[in-house]
C-alpha cells in the first residue's frame, strides 16, 4: 500500500495547541455570566431585555458590516460581536431604553470596530467607545440608575425598554438616584466631608455583594472578581494589567486618603465603587487594544490606574474607568514600540551584544 497525505501544503509547525479565538471569546462570556446573572436578578426583566437587545443588535451590525465588506459570514461565529454587545450591556444603566442599546451596539461594532478594519484592527475598545459616545450624547438616560428589586412585569418592562420609564412604578421618586461616585462627588462639591459622607452612605458589604445602584457589571465586586479569577485561571488574561491597574489606584488612594481623609476617598471606596474591577479584568485586558508585552501591560495598567484616580478625584466626571482605559488604548501602539522584548543575541537597542571572541588557535 502506498501512502500519500492529503493535498494540504503548509509549512511547519504541524501541531497546534487547543486555543482558538472562539474559545477565548466563549471563556470571557462564561466569566461574565455571574455578574450578568446577578444584575438581571437585581434589576429584573428590563435588564434582561436590554442585555438581549444589545447582543442581537451587535450581531446584526456585525453581519451588516461583513456583508458590506464581503467578508465570510462565518466570522460571526468567532464570538467577538456577541462579546462586544455583552460588554456594552453590562456597562449601561440596566433600564436603558431600546435606542440606547441598539445605537450603542451599532456604534460599537460599526464605528468602534469595523471602520478600523474589523477584528484585531481597532485602536479603542469598541464597547467602551460606544459607552462614552452614549454618555456624551445622552447624559440623562446614561446616568439614570434603577433601584434594585423593583421587579416590573413584562408589560412594564417593555414600556421601560420603550423609554417610558417613570410613570409605571408606584414610587417614581425612589426610582432614580446617583451612584456612590456621583453622589460623593456632588457632596464634595457642595463642601462636604468625605469621611462623613462615607460613614453615612458607603458600606463594604453592599459593595461586595452588590445591592446598590449601578450598571450590571459594577454592582457586585465579588462576582466581578470571580469572573476575573476564571479568566486568570483559564490563562485568557495574565495578572499584569489588572494587578498594576488596581495596585496603582490603591497606592494613590492610600497615600492621599491617609494624608487628608476628609478630602480624599479611601482605598476600599476606590476599588469597590464604580466599574474599576470589571474594567480592570474585562476591559483593560482586551487583547486588541492593550500592549502585547508583559512590561507594556504593566505600564498600561499603571497608566489606567493613574488616570482613573486623577479624573475621579479632580476631573469633571464622577466615573473615569472608561476614560482612563480609552486614553491608555490610544497609547498602546507607542507602549508596544518602546517595550519591545530584548532579542536573543542583541541588547535592548537591537545592536549585537559584545562578547569576548574565542581566541583563534595558532596552528
Amino acid at each position, binding site marked *: *500500500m*502506498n*501512502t*500519500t*497525505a*492529503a493535498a*494540504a*501544503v*503548509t*509549512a*511547519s*509547525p*504541524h*501541531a*497546534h*495547541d*487547543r*486555543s*482558538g*479565538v472562539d*474559545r*477565548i471569546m466563549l471563556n470571557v462570556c462564561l466569566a461574565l455570566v455571574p455578574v450578568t446573572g446577578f444584575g438581571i436578578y437585581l434589576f429584573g426583566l428590563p435588564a434582561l431585555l436590554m442585555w438581549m437587545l444589545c447582543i442581537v443588535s451587535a450581531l446584526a451590525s456585525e453581519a451588516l458590516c461583513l456583508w458590506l465588506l464581503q467578508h465570510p459570514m462565518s*466570522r460571526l461565529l*468567532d464570538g*467577538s460581536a456577541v462579546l462586544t454587545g455583552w460588554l456594552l450591556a453590562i456597562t449601561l444603566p440596566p433600564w436603558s431604553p431600546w435606542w440606547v442599546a441598539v445605537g450603542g451596539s451599532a456604534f460599537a461594532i460599526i464605528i468602534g470596530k469595523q471602520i478600523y478594519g*474589523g*477584528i*484585531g*484592527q481597532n485602536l479603542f475598545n469598541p464597547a467602551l467607545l460606544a459607552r462614552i459616545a452614549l454618555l456624551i450624547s445622552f447624559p440623562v438616560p446614561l446616568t439614570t440608575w434603577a433601584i434594585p428589586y423593583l421587579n416590573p412585569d413584562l408589560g412594564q418592562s417593555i414600556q421601560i425598554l420603550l423609554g417610558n420609564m417613570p410613570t409605571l412604578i408606584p414610587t417614581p421618586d425612589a426610582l432614580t438616584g446617583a451612584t456612590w461616585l456621583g453622589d460623593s462627588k456632588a457632596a464634595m462639591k457642595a463642601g462636604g466631608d468625605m469621611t462623613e459622607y462615607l460613614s453615612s452612605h458607603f458600606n463594604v458589604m453592599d459593595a461586595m455583594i452588590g445591592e446598590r445602584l449601578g450598571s450590571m457589571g459594577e454592582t457586585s465586586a465579588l462576582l466581578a472578581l470571580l469572573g476575573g479569577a476564571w479568566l486568570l485561571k483559564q490563562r485568557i488574561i495574565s495578572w499584569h494589567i489588572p494587578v498594576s491597574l488596581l495596585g496603582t489606584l490603591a497606592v494613590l488612594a492610600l497615600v492621599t486618603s491617609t494624608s487628608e481623609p476628609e478630602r480624599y476617598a479611601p482605598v476600599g471606596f476606590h476599588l469597590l465603587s464604580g466599574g474599576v474591577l470589571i474594567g480592570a479584568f474585562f476591559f483593560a485586558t482586551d*487583547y*486588541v487594544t492593550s*500592549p*502585547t*508585552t*508583559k512590561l507594556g501591560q504593566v505600564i498600561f495598567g499603571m497608566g489606567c490606574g493613574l488616570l482613573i484616580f486623577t479624573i475621579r478625584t479632580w476631573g469633571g466626571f464622577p466615573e473615569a474607568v472608561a476614560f482612563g482605559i480609552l486614553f491608555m488604548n490610544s497609547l498602546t501602539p507607542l507602549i508596544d514600540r518602546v517595550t*519591545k*522584548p*530584548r*532579542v*536573543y*543575541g*542583541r541588547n535592548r537597542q537591537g545592536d*549585537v*551584544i*559584545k*562578547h*569576548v*571572541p*574565542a*581566541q*583563534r*588557535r595558532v*596552528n
Partner: protein
Amino acid sequence: MLGSKRYRGGVHPVGHKADSRDDSILTDVPLPPMLYLPLCQHTGDDALPLVQIGDRVLKGQKVAKANGRLSANLHAPTSGIIKAIDTITMPHPSGLPARAIWLEPDGQEQWTELTPHPDPYSIPHEALAGMVEDAGIVGMGGAIFPAAIKLRQGRRFEIKTFIVNGSECEPYLTTDDKLMCERAKEIVEGAKLVRHIIEAYRTVIAIEDNKPEALAAIRQAAEGIGSIEVVAVPARYPMGSAKQLIQAVTGHEVPAGSRSNDIGVLVHNVATVYAIQQALIYGKPLISRVTTVAGGCIAAPRNVEALIGTPVQHLFDSCGGVTSAPSRLLMGGPMMGQVLPTADVPLIKGSSGLLALTRKEVNEHVPAPCIRCGRCVNACPMGLLPLEMASTSRKDDFEGAQDAGLRDCILCGSCAYVCPSHIPLVQYFEYAKGEIRDRRVGEQKMLRTKELADARKARIEAEKAAKAAAKKAKKKKAKPAKKPEPSSEETA
C-alpha cells in the same frame, strides 16, 4: 552576554513520546527492493557520483564524493548493483525532483574493507577530522551541516564548552532518547573523541529532564571518565535549538549573526556523535541511522535503525503499516519538520523522524484575523514580535519584517503553535526569507551582468583603439613622405 541560564519564551507541546519509547530500536528491517541515495543530503552542493550504471558496489563503498561548497561523501548502504543515476521526488515539501543514485540490493550485505582504529587518540587531530569527512557524516539532528567542517572550525577556535545535544524537544521523536538508552557507551566514547579533536576544556552532555532513562544510562556510561559532565536541562520546546541550549548550559548568548564557536562553544547532536564514534573506531561510514516512525496513523510506532535511502513507505510497513489515511506525512518532528509529498521518498541522513499524523493531531484550522493577543510574543524564544513580522510580510514589506525580527528568527514554530487565530506564521516567515533571498540573488546577478557589460565595453573600446592605433601606424608607415608637405604649407 547576560548570565541568565533560563531562555525566554518556549512552549510545552503535547509530547506523544511514550508511543515510540517503549520498544527497543528495531535493527533488522528487511532490505527494500531499491535504495535511493539523493546526491544532496547536506546543506551545500551536490556530491559527485563515482560509480556508473551497472557497477556492483559493496556495502560501505564510497559512491559519490564531496564536490564544492559544504558538500559530503555518500556511501553505499548495502552491496548491490547501481541501477540508475536519475531524478527522484525528494523528501521536501516542494515535491521537486533531484538527482539520486538508485541502488538495487543483492541481499548479500557484503562489506567493503574497513580499517578499524583501536586507538584513534594516537592519530593527529587533523587526520581524525579527515576521517569524519571521509565517512560522510553530517549533522543528524536535522541541520545536515557537514560534521567535519564543524570540527575543523572548532579546531580554529578555542572551544571552552563542547555540548552534546541530547535534548530532543520535538514531540513524537525519541530517536536520540533511545540511542542514549541503548548505546550510551558509544555516545560517551564519541563525545570523548570529539573533545579530543577540538581540544575542548569542558564537555557537557545535555539531556532534557523528561528522559530519565537516557539520563541514567549516560550518567552510568560517563561515570569514571570524569571530564564529561551530564546535565539535565528543563524540558521545554525549543531546548534542542543550539542557541537556546547554549544559553541553558553556559548562561551565555550567541551574539546575533555569529556562530556558536565565536563564543567558544560547539554543539553536536548525540546521533552525530554516535556516527563519529562508529567512523573513528570501526571505520564505518554513515550508511544508516536511527529514526522514529510514529504518528496516529502508524500501527506500531517505534524507532528503527534503517539504511539511508530506504523508501519511507518501507519503514512504515515494517512498523505495522498505516492504519488510516494520514492527514499529513512529515520528515522530522511536527514543530519544524517538513511535509513529505508522498511516502515513496527515501530516508536521508537528516531524517530524525517519519510521522504519519491524523487530522486530529495536526489540528489545523482556517486562519482568522490576528487579535493581537500577544501569545506569540510571549512564546518566542528569541524575543521577536511574530505578529509584526507576519503582518509586514503579508504586505511584502520585507524591510519592516527584518526590523521586527525576521533576521533573528529560527523558524522554531512556537508562535504558530500557540496562535489562537491559527495564522500560518512560520509560512509567512519562510515566504519573506525566501523572497529576500531571491532579491539578493537577483541583485547579485545584476551587479555581475553590469560588471560583465562594462568589461565588454572596455574591451571593445580597447580593441577599437588598438585597431585605430594600428591603422594609424600603418598609415604613417605607408605615407611618411607626404605628410610634412601640407604642414609646411600651413606654416608658410
